């Protein structure tokens, strides 16, 4: 069970307080109406899903209810870092 540091609360808490919310840094297209079906489908459904370092979006659901990013190894489950929305990771997935 993961032990997660919430960058907003400034504390490490049990995974049960959090929810993963998929891949991080997926931005909603600025002009959706200009997207082709393919582009919209890729925004909606296609994900990197790497074995290894991955950037994820999490929410401290049973805590401060704030979202944040996490860089985590999907093989070892090691959390490399957490960082707030709008910030860039210092460890970058390949």
């Amino acid at each position, binding site marked *: *069970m*993961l*032990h997660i540091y919430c960058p907003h609360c400034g504390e490490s808490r*049990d995974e049960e307080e959090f*929810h993963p*919310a998929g891949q991080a840094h997926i*931005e*909603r297209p600025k*002009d*959706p*109406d200009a*997207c082709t*079906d393919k582009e*919209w*489908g890729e*925004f*909606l459904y296609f994900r990197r899903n790497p074995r290894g370092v991955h950037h994820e*979006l999490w*929410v401290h*659901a049973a805590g401060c*209810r*704030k*979202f944040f990013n996490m860089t985590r190894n999907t093989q*070892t*489950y090691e*959390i490399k870092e957490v960082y707030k*929305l*709008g910030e860039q990771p210092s460890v970058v997935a390949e």
Partner: protein
Amino acid sequence: MAQQTNNETRRLSAGGRIDRSKPITFTFNDKQYKGYEGDTLASALLANGVDIIGRSFKYSRPRGIVAAGAEEPNAIMQLGATEATQIPNVRATQQALYDGLVCKVTNGWPNVDNDLMGWVGKLGGKMMPPGFYYKTFMYPKSMWETYESYIRKAAGLGRSPKENDPDRYDNMNQHCDVLVVGGGPAGLMAALTAARGGARVILADEQNEFGGSLLSSKESIGNKPATEWVDDVVTELARFDNVQLLTHATVNGYHDHNFLTIHQHLTDQSFDKAPNGKICQRLHRVRAKWVVLATGAHERPLVYGNNDVPGCMVANAVSTYIQRYGVVPGKDLVLMTTNDNAYRAALDWHDAGHNVVAIVDTRKNSKGTLVEAARERGMTVMLGSGVVDVQGSKRVTSVSIAKLNEAGDQVEGSVIEVKADTVASSGGWSPVIHLSCHTGSRPVWSDEVVGFLPGPSQQQQLTAGAMNGAYSTAAALEQGMNAGQSALEKLAMKMADVSVPETETLDEAEPMALFHIPHPKPTHKAPKQFVDLQNDVTAAGIELACREGFESIEHVKRYTAMGFGTDQGKLGNINGMAIAAKYLKQSIPETGTTIFRPNYTPVTFGAIAGRDCGELFEPKRYTAMHQWHMEHGAKFEDVGQWKRPWYYPKAGETMQEALNRECLATRESVGILDASTLGKIDIQGKDAREFLGRVYTNAWAKLAVGKCRYGLMCGEDGMVFDDGVTSCLAENHFLMTTTTGGAAHVLSWLELYHQTEWPELEVYFTSVTDHWATMTISGPNSRRLLETLTDGDVSKESMSFMDWRAMTVAGVPARVFRISFTGELSFEINVQANYGMHVWKALFEQGKQFNLTPYGTETMHILRAEKGFIIAGQDTDGSVHPFDLGMPWAVSMQKPFSFIGKRGMQREDCVRKDRKQLVGLKTTDPSVVLPEGAQGVFDPKASIPMPMVGHVSSSYWSANLGRSVAMGFVKGGHDKMGQKVYYPLVDGRVVEAEICSPVFLDPKGERQNV
């Protein structure tokens, strides 16, 4: 009537750590026996001369106790004095004896001593090599179910109780600096070091007391008996405030980020059923900064012919029973060993005054301290030899010994037979690396240790003692201390003042790497040589698996079932791997590795569930008026976590009669619904309006203060997931309502978009669902009723449809919304939740004159269906967009911002003309109510599989209309008004219906606008 047996034939008159002043009576297989406090069930059975404690799984061979701890494969019992307190598969070596304990063997018919299945096993055994069931029971095909019923009857060990568990369990969250697993010499030393350094320590051990191997040892530590050293350390540890000592507490799982579970036995070690109020077992959920694994090692038995006959034991277990429990489990011992350490068993046996027939040492030379001690006592030591076979059925009667070649893989010379009733064997030790494996670390083979060592640590984990292959007490103490100091260092704490106490040093000769004792006959013709006793896996079986091409050790294990028992192969797995490796002519590491998964030993479901079952499985949510609903006979429906009134039957009424009455009363006069469960989200901020425009499909820019509007919410795929009315409370202040079940999801949806996509918008969301009690009065008399209780002007002129106003109702502040889900003149009254009951009762007081009738969710469903209003979740399923629902009026494609769902609902598949679309369905026979879920077809004569065109999503008897009403999906339905669709039902009927508008009543909406 239980027979009394008092026959502790194998108990020594003195010695052991049992309390002889506290005798205990227990029942085994309906006979009473005696033991002492401090006994395990296994030691007490052995003391009483019980040889057979079960029958084997596949061959029904008699089995006895072979080990003394968690690794025991055979002594698996059914425990429990009553039906409700039955526990299946209790390992007798880990169960403390208590007064009144009742247990039984799990297999054997008519009884364990004379088991008829044993004959089946003997006769059929030859036809039951590993995997035999894959090769047979196929023909004729129709017979498989019959075959299977016999297979199933033979399966299983113990049985589940048939009554509910009377005991309670709980969970406890714990945090510590250092969790030390195992209270043997290494673990005690690690805990002492960490504790002296000031760390917060938990020390857990599966046994009833700390000490581990030292409890059955005669060595000295710090110039005193080892057990005294243990007592001193434990006493010191107990004095620290920052140390928690847990016994009968098995660390069972090692999960990610140093999260571990400890399964602690409490009253179940002393009572059949927990005394009132006591907790039976506790599961500790521990987050440790550092973990020291000091889990020791299990001795491996050797694999030889008929090595499952009762009397064949692991050498170390023999010592343990003698030293710790004062029980010598036989009269005449043959010890077979590949190492010096096991000589202790023979020495202990001899020193207890019993006869050691021979020590059979597989090595050609041997001259360590213990070996010399044996020779000094005049014991016969047979070098370069092995026990190839034993005789006896219910107990060993004699032992066949032969000379082995240098490699130990062939018998040389003739076989001699000696009389003996016990064979203790030792093939060396296997470090207990289970917990380190749980973390995903793959173990590494060591030729030096002749065993697998823990792989590189994946966590904040340290290891010490025998689990590292450091088997001497001196090494264990030193590694324990070092682990404790390392933990302190990593925790940035100062090193502790501690030193390793003095121990005796022993000269030990090299052990021999031998697992499988050869037999004069080739393995497949030799007597059965068991590897995994619980699953009846033999050396021949493993060789057969390899011969058939199952060469990966995982294949071997799966094909033979080796290691899949409740002991998870603690004794057998390494031997099995060695046999496979030898057969495949490769090394053990080439053959594979051994991976253990949680649990280390089985854990009671109840202990895992803790208090989160029954009443506390999931919270129940009640509205402020719940008590009233109960008192008025409401039937309830589960919606999300809420208990909502479903309908209110009066005495003698059927459900349909109650619904008819509720529906008619509402449309004719006035009805009332408790709508408190609808989700309510308070939205504020200068950009709140803009935000609403982005998350709802329709326009919000012009909604004036005091106005309400209905909205649909879609995902980015354009599919509807929730709906509700949002009201403008002030220029920058809105109240959003959601479906009852969708409230939490909607709130997190709003937060997600606000935080990730549009943080520049100034808007705040607060869940206020529980802050308000909501009651909807609906019907032509609703205004008149409200007027009796309010100071507000609710006239048509000053409060139109889709307006809201603040006023008082029954003397308390209220928000009243003139919105309608029934199509009638309706007012939704919201008051502070704690006033809810007061207002509700006041409405009923005044409502008498109008026959105010409470109605539940079912009537609400009927009334809205008469009007063609959808229920998100019932008339939507995540695959329909607003146009499918026939609600283009709720979508504003002209909004400047491309709202969530807009792009999605315009994808190629979403604009097909033949999509399933929501329509009204009018059965040709108005008295027939279509079943919800019925599937429609255009051609009722089509053959199966029939092309289906959509299902009925809502369907009711409408008392108001005197006919059935339904809504459902039909392919291209919006263009098929007036056409027929057919519903073939389970009972064979085919119901014909006409596609129509879903609005069955008051199509112009006049009733709500009065």
